[in-house]
């Protein structure tokens, strides 16, 4: 940083790393030269299976249970999610008046992140008047996982690459559980999407001749990861948001959807919004509804910290499930191998895979490399957990967390001084704020809850099985099977945001508005009653609860 002002956290000169951490860093430094010379071998399929079975959190039986109600009855999924799906509507259907309609639109988009914004732009391109579109979102427009992506977006645009090669990587990475037609759409639309971004003025990293700078990501057979420094998500999100603002797309902020509305046949006819600031509800009548509420990191599955934004609380899954949507692959959750494990203030935040892609290698307490740096995410994460808890070779932090080193100083040694700061500006800033210089010292990392691999089932037009309901982005499932590869979810929100937006617009042109009821929620409530679900359990969650225990234990409701 030029003005060196960022070291504002604590004026103290003292070493942020503890003494024992510093000792271990010495060992890392000693072995660095060897590492620069010799790569670690990739695991063979048997070892991969062993790592996954014994150490990946998805394989921990006590973390899962099967659903008793709804379309996915009998399916295993994380407890935290199951508890939200099997919960009573947060809004009591008998308390709202659906006869007074606040918004009447062609296309309602729920979620103002990447998928939602893309859907709105393409609905407009498809001929819907911007006035007849509405984005309802929980926080501000763009406060979303989409804003946070660092590493990049995949697209097979280079000569040695092809959509077919991309498709194979997607399917193999997803353990062949993907819906093939969705993986095809993803790979085939990718170059067109990047081209659209270029027209919107996105500043991708390029060589002087205009060719794209690309890197490998975990599980890719070609270098096809495109980035904008390590602010790729931000550059995309703020650009499409700016375009939506230029196109006058109406957005209501701090007004999450809390329930879908249906007619008596179960067709989606609108949604109920809740103004978080005034406690008021709004009734929206819409011809098509696009669900684009993103993921569920803030459920802290198995108590993992998360990379996700504050609003990633599975609301879309909850609402759609009650309305009859089928969910896919909810038993697989993506833990990103390298979340920050130190310092305490930033635990769980992402250290992008681009760091490993640029040559930094995970190293244990003794300074030994123990895993190839670009295994598929689930395997890499399992290997880190094995190193810390299976082999007890992790480094312990002063607050008792464990992690392994990511040997970041290797990057400038490999690619020249300044590479790290130029290409990984976010990570550099994240750590220098806490007086750790990643070009001098390694970073301590541990897996962190990152991505919802599965979600609402859609077809390749972004339609769900529920009439009138469309979905795009992290909330839907089937595209990535059981494991999403890096750079494919920015792509996902663009491809399926677009497809859902177009399909929603088409439906809106062909249909009229329907009647507004909460019948589906009442029916679901009956099923919950029959299954004996705890009545106190309510959903959607909307925001996570982080208030101090002391406060909560003494909180009373007077107003």
């Amino acid at each position: 940083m030029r003005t060196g002002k960022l070291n504002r956290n604590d004026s103290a000169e003292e070493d942020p790393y503890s003494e024992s951490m510093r000792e271990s860093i010495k060992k890392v430094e000693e072995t660095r030269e060897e590492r620069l010379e010799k790569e670690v071998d990739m695991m063979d399929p048997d070892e991969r299976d062993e790592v996954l079975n014994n150490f990946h959190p998805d394989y921990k039986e006590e973390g899962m249970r099967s659903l008793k109600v709804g379309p996915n009855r009998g399916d295993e999924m994380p407890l935290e999610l199951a508890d939200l799906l099997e919960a009573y509507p947060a809004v009591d259907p008998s308390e709202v008046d659906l006869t007074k309609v606040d918004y009447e639109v062609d296309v309602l988009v729920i979620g103002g992140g990447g998928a939602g914004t893309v859907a709105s732009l393409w609905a407009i391109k498809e001929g819907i008047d911007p006035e007849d579109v509405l984005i309802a979102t929980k926080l501000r427009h763009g406060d979303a996982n989409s804003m946070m992506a660092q590493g990049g977006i995949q697209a097979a645009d280079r000569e040695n690459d092809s959509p077919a090669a991309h498709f194979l990587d997607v399917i193999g990475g997803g353990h062949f559980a993907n819906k093939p037609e969705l993986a095809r759409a993803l790979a085939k639309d990718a170059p067109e999407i990047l081209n659209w971004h270029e027209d919107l003025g996105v500043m991708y990293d390029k060589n002087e001749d205009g060719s794209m700078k690309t890197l490998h990501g975990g599980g890719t057979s070609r270098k096809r990861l495109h980035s904008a420094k390590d602010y790729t998500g931000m550059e995309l999100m703020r650009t499409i948001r700016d375009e939506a603002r230029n196109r006058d797309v109406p957005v209501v902020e701090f007004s999450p959807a809390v329930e879908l509305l249906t007619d008596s046949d179960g067709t989606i006819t609108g949604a109920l919004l809740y103004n978080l600031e005034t406690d008021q509800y709004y009734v929206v009548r819409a011809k098509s509804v696009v669900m684009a509420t993103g993921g569920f990191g803030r459920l802290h599955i198995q108590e993992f910290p998360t990379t996700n934004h504050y609003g990633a609380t599975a609301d879309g899954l909850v609402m759609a499930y009650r309305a009859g949507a089928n969910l896919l692959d909810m038993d697989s959750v993506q833990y990103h191998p390298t979340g920050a494990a130190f310092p305490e203030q930033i635990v769980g935040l992402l250290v992008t895979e681009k760091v490993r892609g640029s040559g930094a290698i995970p190293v244990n307490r003794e300074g030994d490399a123990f895993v190839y740096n670009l295994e598929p995410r689930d395997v890499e994460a399992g290997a880190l957990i094995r190193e810390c808890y299976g082999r007890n070779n992790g480094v312990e932090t002063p607050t008792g967390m464990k992690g392994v080193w990511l040997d970041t100083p290797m990057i400038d040694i490999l690619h020249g001084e300044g590479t790290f700061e130029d290409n990984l500006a976010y990570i550099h800033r994240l750590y220098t704020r806490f007086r750790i210089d990643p070009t001098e010292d390694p970073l301590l990392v541990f897996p962190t809850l990152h991505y919802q691999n599965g979600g609402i089932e859609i077809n390749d037009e972004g339609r769900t099985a529920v009439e009138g309901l469309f979905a795009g982005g992290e909330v839907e499932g089937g595209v990535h099977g059981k494991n999403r590869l890096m750079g494919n979810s920015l792509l996902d929100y663009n491809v399926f945001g677009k497809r859902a937006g177009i399909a929603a617009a088409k439906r809106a042109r062909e249909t009229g508005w329907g009647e507004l009821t909460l019948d589906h929620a009442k029916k679901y409530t009956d099923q919950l009653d029959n299954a004996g679900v705890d009545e106190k359990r309510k959903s959607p969650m909307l925001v996570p609860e982080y208030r101090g225990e002391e406060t909560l234990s003494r909180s009373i409701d007077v107003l």
Partner: protein
Amino acid sequence: MLDKPETETLEIFIMGKKYEVPRGLTIMKAMEYSGYQYIRGVGCRGGFCGACSTIYRLEGDYKLHTDLACQTTVQDGMYLTQLPFTPAGRKQYDLEELEISNNPLLDLYPELARCVSCNTCTKTCPQDLEVMDFVNEAIRGNVKEVAELSFDCIQCGLCAARCPAEIPHHHVGQLARRIYGRYQAPESEHLKERVEEINNGVFDDELEELVNLPEEELRERYENREIES
């Protein structure tokens, strides 16, 4: 595995009201610890979105500091408030219709000329950007320099809130980046060619074959695929 704060505590003043919180938390977590449940003032929790703009002063000092609540550790005697919204004006424009021969930045934001070079914006910026420099580049019409210098802007609006000339720096930066990306950055030929190939159906048969392949065969192709080094 969630944060376990250390036990040592310190005193902070949230909008003037005193709370005791454990040492080593971010401002954001300290406010939550104190009992605030965020609606405004939080977004990504990771230094990307600029929702958590915070102004603080340390006891005994006159200086007002600015930073991000999710990225800043609480200190003893911190007087703080959040500034989750800045009503800085943003101009509508159509990127395709923009007259870019002249100085589009100054055309849309004539208030740029009011800059007195006080450097307050640069001092304010939690991302440590050279904000005053990009304002000056904007006055001169150097779109590329503005785009590059403002690239890491998280649009928190703190600079705009403190600028005596009432310049909406972050909106100017956004405009410059889009103009640069759209009109000035070198074009990517291979991308355009690939799009054309796809539109001409060049890959359709191959994809159709893969989509219909039984899992066994797909698996085999995957295991044996060639990997670029």
